[in-house]
């Protein structure tokens, strides 16, 4: 069966510090990968998605970037965090990019920027 991992589970960082969040998927190959941010009262915002190694699409221009160095690894980064980057970050995977494909979510990372 497939599993998806995220770490760290929680993170407290000062403004201006760098960020690296990691997501890995097991039990499948060539998944589509997604990063979402969930801020209080704002639902889920799609940040990035990737259909393959080195292929990243950005949905929202911002302070963050994403990379996919390996087939089942997806990394969310920032060079300098802002207060507005605080939130709950969720990684997800799907088997394809068709209209009926289900996305499966990881446990999330709670980021607090002080």
């Amino acid at each position, binding site marked *: 069966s497939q599993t998806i991992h*995220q770490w760290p589970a929680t993170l407290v960082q000062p403004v201006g510090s760098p960020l690296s969040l990691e997501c890995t998927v097991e039990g499948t190959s060539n998944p*589509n990968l*997604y990063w979402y941010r969930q801020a209080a*009262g*704002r*639902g*889920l915002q*799609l940040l990035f*998605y990737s*259909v393959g190694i080195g292929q990243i*699409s950005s949905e929202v221009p911002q302070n963050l970037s994403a990379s996919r160095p390996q087939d089942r690894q997806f990394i969310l980064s920032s060079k300098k965090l802002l207060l507005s980057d605080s939130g*709950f970050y*969720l990684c*997800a995977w799907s088997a394809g*990019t*068709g*209209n*009926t*494909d*289900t*996305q*499966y*979510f*990881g*446990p*999330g990372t*709670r980021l607090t920027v002080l």
Partner: protein
Amino acid sequence: AQSVTQLDSQVPVFEEAPVELRCNYSSSVSVYLFWYVQYPNQGLQLLLKYLSGSTLVKGINGFEAEFNKSQTSFHLRKPSVHISDTAEYFCAVSVHHSGAGSYQLTFGKGTKLSVIP
């Protein structure tokens, strides 16, 4: 553009009472709809999805949803809720992104269900 509206941000309900969480979508083409549940400080878990066929879809944990094309709705229901159903529920629609040639999910803002003992 396709979008999803969840009409209620919070729904309190007594244990063993029925509940309906409302979701409306806007689309001019075929739609594929999903309901996810999020327990506190956890990721999202798929409850059910409508792709085609029967408009009444049954999911996990005793939940069901009915696709109504004329009312552009996909409301989630449960006849008798438990304390363990306390969570946030998200409705989502599959949207085609022409730039990438793929489909993505657009989520509603969520409905927090609180079950009162």
